[in-house]
């Protein structure tokens, strides 16, 4: 397993202690955390976790996304896809670029599982991003999930990418 992924503009790698402040900046923005399930608000440096609870590295399950050395977002595919991007970096295709690289690696292994992302209703930016990547929204399930930042549960839909769909687009 490589210890990082380079894309045209970005590096996907393990988060390190020096990233805490940048991660707190991005995740401390309610416009970001209101679309995430488990990031409370307010969220500060002391809330950032760069290791799993057992002390192991979160890489490669969770990738910190760095632009010119500074973390601007995060991305995981397993067990559920989740991602965030610091607001000032929205609209430049960074998450599309990071997700493509991550999905390419995921689907390169034999028997790779489908990737599923839950999206709270109203998060059109993420819906568009997933559609561009080939994800298809599952039949409406009526599922709801708790959003820590808002302190309430919200309707959520799963979006799924199968290996067949990914390979057809690649």
């Amino acid at each position: 397993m490589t210890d990082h992924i380079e894309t045209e503009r970005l590096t996907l790698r393990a988060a390190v202690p020096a990233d805490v402040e940048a991660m707190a900046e991005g995740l401390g923005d309610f416009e970001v955390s209101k679309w995430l399930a488990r990031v409370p608000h307010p969220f500060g440096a002391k809330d950032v976790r760069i290791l799993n609870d057992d002390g192991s590295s979160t890489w490669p399950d969770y990738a910190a996304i760095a632009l010119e050395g500074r973390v601007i977002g995060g991305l995981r595919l397993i067990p559920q896809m989740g991602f965030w991007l610091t607001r000032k970096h929205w609209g430049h295709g960074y998450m599309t670029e990071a997700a493509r690289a991550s999905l390419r690696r995921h689907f390169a292994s034999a028997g790779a599982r489908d990737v599923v992302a839950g999206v709270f209703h109203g998060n059109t930016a993420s819906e568009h991003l997933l559609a561009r990547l080939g994800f298809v929204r599952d039949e409406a399930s009526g599922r709801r999930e708790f959003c820590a930042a808002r302190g309430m549960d919200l309707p959520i839909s799963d979006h799924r990418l199968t290996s067949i769909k990914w390979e057809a687009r690649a």
Partner: protein
Amino acid sequence: MNTFDKPVLHGPRVILRDARATDVAERYALGNTPEIQAMFGADPAQVREITPEAAEAWVQSQAAEQYAWVIEVDGGLIGAIRLHTVNHAYKRAQIAIGLLDPARLGQGLGTEAMQVLATHAFDTMGLHRLGCRVLSFNERALSSYQKVGFELEGREREAALIGTEWHDDLILGLLDRDLVRLP
């Protein structure tokens, strides 16, 4: 801000109405009570003081859902209630309620709000069945739902992960003929 034309529903003490802009300040004032948030499935360790943005987002979410009402008692906001997953073909929906004011718990107001909305769901919307799920440790809610006429229909084992612990969800159902109607 309001997309849907929601009727105002009255009980003896509660009023169910659409959210409005002035609810933001009231939602902010109600704050986040860890013990209450835990009943919604929040990890109490992750509950923070409410912020103005979160209060506004809460009110907007009520307005954005077709079948969500805020609950008002004595002119003040105490929580919200809604139907979701409404299926007209099978005449059924899910119902969910959240009371946010710790001073208003234990007075039968949630039970009354459920009775008011269930009456609307059956008599006006023509539904036949309401489903509901509740975390197994939420005994106050379970007892309230049973007063409304809900019956326990099942248990989804370890359906909710809160912090690092799994909890069961109880599945309840109410048929139109079993609703305990308000006098």
